[in-house]
Each structure stands twice: as structure tokens, then as C-alpha cells.
């Protein structure tokens, strides 16, 4: 089961190491991880995606929660959260018409196009993993020279009575 875990942690050195080391030492799997500061500069949010069955997921949450530097651990439900990943792909341009085709595809996927050159082009997409995979499939034929993914970033949807 693919799951998104949102973890609020103390924003201080060594915390990312503790989290990743926990996954390693307990034989859990990290699919992707993204880390960044929150509205509170003392707190960072880590968004971790993992492949785990229910029992293991439960343990991951408890073991994360047990770490003294974690402040909150939540499993985000796909339907009750917004989750996105930013991906950049440098594609090979073999013939002049490639640029037009890639740009059209990029528009269809609401991608940004950067660094258009005679032999390569960079596209940037922010989307759900499904859409990213679909795009990747479509552009594979041109040749993906390089790719960078940020990992999932996610927030739970509002519930209508926030204070």
C-alpha cells in the first residue's frame, strides 16, 4: 500500500538523519522524501512516501512518533489531501519538429518549458505521480537525458472549520 506520511519535526541539524536512519534500521522503505521549513521557522515538514502494509505503516507511524524530535506524525489519505511532485526532464531534441511536438505535449500537461536548445529541451511539471508517469511515458521516445524529482509534497485538505 502506497502511503503518504506527513511529519512535523524540530528544524535542527541531524533530524533528517534520525528519520532516515530509523527507516533503515527498522527495514522500512522510503519511496520519496521531501523536507522544508514551515510557517514556523523552528519546525520543518517532512513528507515521506512509503510502500508498506497496514501493520507496518502503523509501526512506522509509532516509531516516528517515538522520536523525540518529531512533533506530529500523520498519514494523509489520498482523497483528503493535496499532493504534488515537481519533476524536471531534460529531453533530447533530434530533429527540429521535436521542439514543437514536445511543447504541445507540455502545454497539454500544463508544463513549463525551459532552456530550449538545438539538441535538448527542459520541461518542468508539478503534478500527481500518476500524471507525471503518464507524461514520462509519452516523452520517453524522444530520449530522457536527465531527470530530477523532488519527491511528494503534501498537505491535508481543510475541513471547513479551521480557526
Amino acid at each position, binding site marked *: 500500500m502506497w502511503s503518504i506520511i506527513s511529519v512535523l519535526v524540530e528544524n535542527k541539524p541531524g533530524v533528517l*538523519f534520525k528519520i532516515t*536512519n530509523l527507516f533503515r*534500521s527498522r527495514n522500512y522503505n522510503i519511496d520519496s522524501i521531501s523536507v522544508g521549513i514551515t510557517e514556523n521557522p523552528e519546525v520543518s515538514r517532512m513528507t515521506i512516501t512509503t510502500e508498506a502494509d497496514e*501493520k507496518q505503516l502503523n509501526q512506522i507511524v*509509532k516509531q516516528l*512518533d517515538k522520536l*523525540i*524530535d518529531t*512533533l506530529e506524525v500523520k498519514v494523509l489519505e489520498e482523497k483528503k489531501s493535496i499532493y504534488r511532485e515537481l519533476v524536471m526532464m531534460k529531453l533530447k531534441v533530434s530533429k527540429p519538429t521535436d521542439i514543437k511536438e514536445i511543447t504541445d505535449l507540455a502545454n497539454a500537461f500544463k508544463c513549463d518549458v525551459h532552456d530550449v536548445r538545438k539538441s535538448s529541451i527542459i520541461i518542468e511539471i508539478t503534478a500527481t505521480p500518476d500524471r507525471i508517469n503518464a507524461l514520462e511515458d509519452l516523452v520517453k521516445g524522444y530520449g530522457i537525458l536527465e531527470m530530477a524529482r523532488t519527491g511528494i509534497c503534501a498537505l491535508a485538505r481543510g475541513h471547513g472549520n479551521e480557526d
Partner: protein
Amino acid sequence: MEKISGARSLMIALEKEGVEIAFGLPGGANLPIYDELYKSNIRHVLVRHEQSASHMADGFGRVSRRPGVCFATSGPGATNIVTGIATAQADSAPMVAITGQVPSKMIGRDAFQESDIIGITNPIVKYAFQPMSPTEIPEVVKKAFYIAATGRPGPVLIDIPKDVQQNEAEIHFPSEVKIRGYHPWVDPDITAIERATEMLLSAERPIILAGGGVIISSAFAELQSIAELLMIPVVTTFKGKGSFPENHPLSLGPIGMHGHAEANKMMTEADCVLACGSRFSDRSVGTFEEFEKNLKIIHMDVDPAEIGKNQTTNVAVVGDVKTSLRIMVKMLIQKAIKRNGESAWQKRVQETKEYYRENLKIHPHPLAASKVLKKLREVLPAQSIVTTEVGQHQMWASLFFDVIHPGTFFSSTGLGTMGWGFPAAIGAKAAKPDVPVLDIAGEGSFNMTENSLAVSVLEDLPVIVLLLNNFTLGMVAQWQRTFYDRRMIGVDLKNCPDYVKVAEAYGAQGIRATTIDEIGKAVQTALKSNVATVIDIPIDPQEDVLPFVAPGTSLKDMILPS
């Protein structure tokens, strides 16, 4: 405000925490700490190897239930205490380990005696601090003691760069600290305890499994009340050994790989278990799937992450075990529930216990472990503290040495650290100087930390080492006999050294005892003397520890002596 050094502030902070004794060995990177130790009221116990300092702090912590303190220098000093830290973590023992580190500007430059001890110990500490300014030290110390001692106890590391020890600053000592990500006192949920009580009352064949948490939270009286009110038999984990008096009619002893036959047997026949402060280690329960088959599990534990880790739980009670059990006792008293011991289950339990206690074959050798340890029990006062090393002697202690006074038996049960028992006994003696302390040892383990004899003798911390000497790494030899077709390799210690001479070389008392009678007398001599004593007992190298639940099998597959 007067300026003081980081090292001075460390000493003041330690004294404020009530630290009176610390175990350690100085080196280049912790000399400023030692210079302040020189001026402080804290007693320093000089060890011969830092690993022993960490085990002494561990033994001190388990017995006093306050964090034991050890000091080591940077680099190899710090890495030498890693085993001690891991041992304390595996057995939830409160400890504060304080290491010197190279000066902060040298960190990361592969300086002389630099080791990334924070990184190295990450998975085996409850928490680690590396203060980068002397002003941080008092708060760090306060947090370290709080974290080490509360909730599920454990080891905390404080790694202090040398310049942080030396630099002076105006230093404020907080009277309390707050750690927002740490909530150790989870009050048990009353409705969960109600459900647990109902489940226990409606069970036909209930059993109590008492773990180390009962000893840590000192829940002996509460445990005994529940057992007696409901006439439920009590088994323990090995770590929980002695959480319930083992001469009590309801006691069946430890379960597990080398559990008592009657304990393993009744555990497999029970339909509901009240597990208190136990983490369902594989050594205790065998295969997880088989253990939970046809068994309702009520799990009380202070650590929420233990719930559902190894076993599926029917009712979970998260919180201090003592508090949880006390509430359960109250509920039972309010409901006026008091059972007699006349149920079919009770009869079955008593019959099984009697059967195994009368019919299990005893190893024929005149110095069979069972005979040696029963003699020890006869002559050793009940309130004495007993530690063990790791190996066959440890499991024989589990099988044949009854703990009568709760909370007087300590062993490296989780990590299984050979060499732990002797220095831990010295730490225990420091915590309770008026009580006899004895280490049930094997010579393979004793070898590993025997240089602590110097500490025991010179620091006037006399403990007794009862050495079950089979000249062999006995447990490994047993596995080679059992699982590797008797291909014996790397186990023969060839009767070297002579432990009586070793003891004498350190100024301790060495006694060789070759009959049961001599063993009794030797222990009595040791108890009367005020010097460390090693009692060397040549036992049979061929004796196996039985019963035996082979690894990867379940309690019902227990192999009995034949």
C-alpha cells in the same frame, strides 16, 4: 553573573541532578571535565576499559532506578562505550553517557581521536546531545536526565567538544525544562483497563506474562494482588524474571527459549494473556504467528510503539504499568472479585507444575548447574542482588536460581552482552553498598571484562563472581553439538587462565570449589569477607541447557531433557 567554564557548569548540573558517583576513564578530549571532577563532590570510579564504565553505569541505573553516569574521552574512548549504550537501550536501562569530543573547529577534519559518536550511536540511544556552547550545558544535562529516567528509560549521550568544556560564559541553570516532542507519561485509558479486566475475567485459561516493565516501574505488589485475587498463574519473560516471587505457588517462572517447562507448557495452553511491560521478544515467545494463535492478548506497556510490533493485541493499555495494574486491582476490589484456586485450569496448572518439577531429568554430573545454583540459593540471602553474564550459565540461572525478592535479578537480556554481569554487579554494589551482590558468570563472559577486578578491589566495591567454568564458550558449543553435527570450532578455551590466580593477581580472593559443599562454604566465606571474590567451579563442559525451544520454532516445540 560570574563566568564559569562549560566543564564547571557540567559538574554543577550533575550535582543538581543528585549524581554522587560516575564511572569512567579520562583522555585528551575530556580532561577539562576531569579537572572539574577533581574539584567536585562526585565520586569517580576509574575503570580499566570504558566498556565496563558503561556497564557499571547501567547496573547502577537498573538498581537505583536513577540514571547511571559514565565518562569517556573522544574517539576510541567513545566507541568503547557503544556496546554498553546498546545494552542499556535493549534493556531500557537509564543511563547518561558523557563523552569528550575534539574541539568544535576540528570536528569533521578527521582529527586525532575524533569519532562521530553522535552518528555512531544514533540507533541505540534514546537521545543524544552535542552542546556547542557552554551556556547550553545545564539545559542539556537536565533534559538528558529527564529523558533517560522517564517513560521507557534508556541511555542518553552528551558529547561535548573540548573547547565547549573550556570556554567560559555566564551560565544560567534552569529549574525545569520542556521538551515539546516528548510525552513520556501517558495516563492509561480507564476504559481500556475496564475492557482488559472484562477479558481477563471471562477467560477460561488466563495467564499473566510479566516483563521487565514490571521491574522498571516497581509494580510488584500490584502484580501480586491481581494474580492472587484472580488466582492466575504468572509466567515472566527472562527480563521479567523475579518480578514475581519465584517461590510463590502461582509462579511458573520464565517462558522462552530456555524457559521453565511448566511455564512454556501453560503459556501454550492459555486462552488469554495479560502481558505487563513485555515486548514479546522472539527469545520469549518463539515464532510470533504461533504464539498468538488461539490467544487473546492484553498488552500493557508504557511505550505505544511496542503495541502491535510483534504480536497482534486484543486490548492495549498504554501507560505506566504500575499505574495501570493499580487501577485494575481497584476495579477488581470494587467488583468484590476474589477467586479461589479450584477451577479446572488451576488444577491443570498445579498438576503440570508438579509433574515437570518432579520428572524432568537432572544432568548426572555432581556439579550439574541445577545443583550448583540451588546450593547458591540456599546460602545467598534473599535480598541479595544477582547479575549474570551471557551464555549457558545465564540460562541455567533462569532455570534453576529462584528469585524470591522481586527486582533483585538483572541480566543483559535484550542485547545479550557477554562481559556485562561483572561490571554491572560493581555498579549495583555502588547503588546498594549494604546488600551482597553476586554475578553468576561463565568464564567466557568473565574473560571479557575481568579487568574490572581492579575496580572492585581498589574502589571497595566487593562483589562475588560465581564462575561456572566449563572451559568452553558453552552456549555456542551446545548449538554446535545440536545443530552442526558436533563440528566444534572456536569454543575451546583450554582452561586458561587460572581464575584463582587471576583473582589473586588483582588482590581479590580466589576460591576453587569442586563439590557442592565447598561451593556453599565458598559463598559463605565471600559473604563474610569484604573483598571481591571469584569462586571458580569446574563444571561439566558437556552439560546442555534444557529445556530448549530451538530458534525459529514455537514454545510447543520445546525440547525436554532426555
